[in-house]
């Protein structure tokens, strides 16, 4: 697989003409968004000033929500086309450069069934969305990932709906090279961090929505993660000392909460960015190093899972 510096070279050399073209578009769109935005704001402020005395607080709140929705509409109206261009001309070639066996569909996301099958989040989503679906094979190992946004609906006693975020970030699915039957789930360790070892451990051991707690024999890993499994031995068969080490170093590179599960021969990973990845920024230049690195690093991280965790080293029994 290509290294990050090779990809950065590709970004600034091969894609440079396209980048400049897009950069011009971006500046035009930025101007338009600002102009229209100001006019829109002036307009609604005038309306607001004219009527705010006759309105109750509830309706005023609703009015504010409408204004925000309008802003969002204006923004996406101008940016959508640019965003499609950006994805086809920048993200797609980048993915192709990393590995040309990968397919990229900007508008699709991973199947919701896979998200549910991962058991990473105990709430089932009522509404999902996502984009930037990448799928294909790396070293003959199937991998798929995409941006994913899952929400749960709550209805209160007054029949008011509200949506609670379950997960937003990158969701990666690949094949695991060992045969196993149990379900093993590795979650970020929050209880031990907040309450210390003794109470944290007790809370984790008595988490009724999860399977049995598995205490791992790597203290650094234990500090970062908590492991639940239906089988104490198989959990350790999967999480060998070497894989724990690899997951730890992967976690350090990710720098965001990392959820991992091993179910039905597959490995599921959810990286909680709380952000829609691979979207163009209108108010910042595409040529900016930090912006470029963001795209490259995230792609490299997701596609690099196979190599980094050595998922491509199949065991004899699985060939």
């Amino acid at each position, binding site marked *: 697989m290509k290294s990050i510096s090779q990809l950065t070279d590709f970004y600034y050399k091969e894609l440079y003409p396209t980048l400049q073209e897009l950069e011009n578009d971006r500046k035009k769109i930025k101007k338009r968004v600002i102009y229209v935005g100001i006019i829109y704001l002036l307009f609604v402020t005038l309306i607001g000033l004219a009527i705010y005395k006759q309105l109750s607080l509830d309706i005023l709140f609703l009015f504010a929500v409408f204004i925000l929705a309008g802003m969002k509409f204006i923004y996406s109206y101008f940016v959508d086309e640019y965003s499609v261009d950006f994805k086809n001309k920048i993200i797609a070639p980048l993915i192709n450069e990393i590995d040309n066996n990968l397919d990229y569909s900007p508008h699709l996301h991973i199947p919701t069934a896979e998200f549910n099958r991962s058991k990473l989040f105990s709430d089932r989503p009522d509404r999902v969305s996502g984009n930037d679906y990448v799928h294909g094979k790396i070293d003959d190992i199937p991998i798929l990932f995409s941006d994913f946004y899952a929400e749960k609906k709550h209805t209160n006693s007054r029949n008011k709906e509200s949506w609670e975020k379950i997960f937003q970030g990158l969701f990666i699915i690949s094949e695991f090279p060992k045969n196993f039957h149990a379900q093993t789930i590795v979650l970020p360790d929050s209880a031990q961090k907040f309450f210390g070892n003794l109470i944290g451990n007790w809370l984790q051991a008595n988490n009724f929505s999860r399977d049995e707690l598995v205490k791992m*024999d790597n203290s650094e890993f234990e500090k970062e993660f908590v492991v639940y499994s239906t089988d*104490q*031995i198989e959990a*350790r*068969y999967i999480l*060998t000392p070497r894989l724990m080490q690899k997951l730890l170093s992967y976690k350090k590179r990710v720098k965001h909460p990392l959820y991992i599960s091993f179910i039905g021969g597959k490995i599921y990973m959810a990286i909680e960015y709380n952000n829609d990845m691979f979207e163009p920024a209108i108010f910042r230049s595409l040529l900016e190093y930090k912006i470029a690195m963001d795209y490259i690093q995230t792609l490299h991280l997701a596609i690099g899972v196979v190599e980094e965790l050595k998922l491509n080293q199949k*065991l*004899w*029994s699985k060939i």
Partner: protein
Amino acid sequence: MSTPLIILIVVAIILILMYNSLVAKKNQVDNIFATIDTQLKKRYDLIPNLVASVSKYMEHEKSILEDITKLRSQANKPNLSQKEKIELDSKVSNALGSIMIAVENYPDLKANENVMHLQHSLNEVEDQIAAARRAYNQAVTDYNNALEMIPTNFMANAMGYLPKDLFVIPENQRKNINVRELFNQ
């Protein structure tokens, strides 16, 4: 209800909980040991096959092959204690390790499909045993902790529970094979 009665009930509940948690910990150890036992058997079953396929080639290592055959027949004896099984396991692991290293010295053997397959099967079983050993050690640690920590230690004493031994994770599994050692043999 009178106060003494309430205190009595609370104490009884605490005692029952302590008793049950100790029994659960002991059973967890035994359960995991049973799994290790079946996996060890799986490995012992592979040994005659391995010995048969390598003995034609290995003239200098006859003594290791004899040793491992002996160890296997020892392991097949009934009524071995957990401690004896643990000791036998580490000896067999060592002997198998040295056979695997010796195989590297015989190009014919290394290329032999049967030996290759056996090697992979053994590696797979070895991986499973390694996982089971780690699970066992954790269960034993939990059990031994309960035996020594207040307040369960009093209860354990009364129940006659004794601390159990941990598996020693073999040294040769922790470090990678040293290439120079291979040439010096």
